């Protein structure tokens, strides 16, 4: 399981790229622990993946945004699972530790490109 650490200022975002296996019934879910209020997670724009065949894996992105006023640490655990089979181990997992520094919202807060999720 891959673990990454990132430091963001309030308003700043970090893009996580994960391998999607939706054609096999898998979905990425996530859970935020720690200072859960300092970050938000949302699906990002769909990366270009031309001509993917049925069943093939695709690239997905998720955007982690640091929320004001900052000043906290959160752990985001992404798990790729099949919802009807809760007892199955996740196909893949990815953990992002986020430290959000205290401060005001960064004007036009940029997106820090990241990557993650083996495979």
């Amino acid at each position, binding site marked *: 399981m891959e673990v990454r650490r990132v430091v963001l200022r309030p308003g700043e975002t970090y893009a996580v790229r994960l391998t999607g296996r939706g054609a096999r019934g898998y*979905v990425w879910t996530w859970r935020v622990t720690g200072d859960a209020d300092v*970050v938000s997670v949302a699906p990002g724009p769909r990366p270009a993946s031309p001509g*993917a*065949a049925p*069943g*093939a*894996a*695709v690239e*997905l992105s998720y955007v982690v945004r640091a929320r004001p006023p900052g000043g906290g640490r959160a752990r985001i655990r992404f798990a790729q699972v099949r919802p*009807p089979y809760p007892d199955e181990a996740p196909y893949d997992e990815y953990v992002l530790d986020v430290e959000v520094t205290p401060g005001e919202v960064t004007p036009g807060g940029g997106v820090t490109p990241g990557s993650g999720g083996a495979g």
Partner: protein
Amino acid sequence: MPQESVQSVGELRAQLIARGARWSVLEHLADEEPVPRPSLGLEPGANLTPAGAVGPVDLAGLIGHASGNPHLTRRRAAHGLLGAAPRTAAGARPAAVDWRNRWGWPWITKVKDQNPCGSCWAFGAAGLVESMARIEHDVWAKRSEGDVHDGLRFSCGQGSNPETALDWITANGGLADPDCWPYSIPPAGLPAARRDAWRAEYTPSWDRSGRTVRVTDYVRLGDVEQQKVWLDTVGPLTACFDVYDDFFGLGSGVYHRTSDRLAGGHCVLVVGYDDAAGCWLFKNSWGTGYHVGGYGRIAYGEVNIDYWAKCGLRGTNPDPWTKRRLHTGNVYESGNGRAHRNFELLATTTGARLQHWWREGDAPFAWARARTFAHDASGQPAFTGTTYNRNMESLHVTTGGRLRHWYYEQSAGVWRDGGAFGPGDAAIGSTPAFIQSDYGKPGNFEVVVRTADGRLNHWWRINGAPWTWNDGGRFASGIAHYGPALVQTRARHLDLVAARTDGRMQLWWRDDPNGFVWRAGEVFGSGTPAICAPCLIEGQYGAADEDTAGNYELCVAVAGGQVEHWWRGNAGGSPWRRSAVFGHDVAAVTGMLQGSFGFNLEVVVLRTDRRLQHYWRDGAGWHEGPVIGPV
């Protein structure tokens, strides 16, 4: 409170209500649980044909003939697809078709799980082959998705499409069973990063050519109305579509898209349609946890399901391994002939020789003589097809009380003497039991023959060098008649039924886990003494699915020259029951099978005038067929 995934099941349910959706989320998911995400869908690929590029096809040219399945023949007639019958325009097609159960029979193999590989396309294609073998030949033919997936050298994560799979199956001698080469997944513990790249090294058993359901061609159908006619008159279709986030939550109801987030491209097997609900019925390959037991419904035209051509099959040719429990004695159904359902028959003729007879699988179903061979046959032979390139194999008791093996080499078209072996005191004039078991690959030959002292003698051959026959020992006593009545059960042990000197019948079984000892089983009979060896098969009645044992069907000639038909329910554990008495002037039942004719039972008898005659049973009972010829 920890923050969780943005869209929960509860939110999806609210979304469905807001958009007036006609489907509901899986009932077992709680509102606070997450539902999918992903992205990307089907895009024009190298070997996935848009429906618009196919257009209407000539259905009458493709399927304008009688099917082995009488129900389908009626459906084709209703559509005006047979001969000069008037074409019925509107109203011929039923409002709904569901192949899970038509005419009181199941036709679709169980829902499987491709997890964790991207092999939906292989599962769609394999499901199509399985269902068409069942529909056209009335036999469960469990196939291996791994055969085509690994035969194509695809990795676990590699996507493809059913057309690529069907092209490979067509060009590579068909699709094998899981015991020849299984569907396999990355080993446990392999890191996720390496799982998608993992591939199995394809090494099927070397008798693969004898254990594949062969396919000559497949059909692309682009026209939706023709797809429905095909579903009504032929069978299921493969289909591919885009998967959106909300699809993972599909439970009951008719799916239509309520999400804009693409999650990937997917392929399934369409097993029916419902015009009233406006949807296709599909069998998914994500296990039984998704949708309703693994089956779902998608509205016509949704998520591009009608954008791509759907693929259908006809003219499947099942292998002898698939049909190994469905015949016994001197007759079996080979894959020869246009309809791949010729009957092959061996019988004695003058000079202690054996005469090969055959019957074409299409009307007028005339019997014809083929070649003669051998010179020392004392009685009717046992005849079967094996995984050795689908060779025909014959075994008879010689005039000297031994056993002699002959085989028909398909590639050369000649009968070859496989040599003599055996006890030296086999009952002259009797027929041995002769099957191929699943011990080893290719499976061992198993033979049981009655000896002159009223016992039973088991012989077996490992099908590999040095190809020697081994004496498996003698058992039982007081056996009056024994012959073609040996079956390998789903639990792998051997069952046989013999007629005792008191005129009753008894089952014997081999206790493999405890020293391969033969043990006596139940005794049954009507009180009218058996006068010949019983014929025993495991048929398709009672086989609710591909993993369930069918009933035993047994026919035996009794005093008075009639045939008694007995059966035992293997799945439900019901005891032996006599279901019918039929025929006249019968000296012995020499062969029996359940073939590709609407689950009919077919029996060949030796009459008291030394001629062979065919009897058969359909839903209306037993019928007297033609006299085939002298022995």
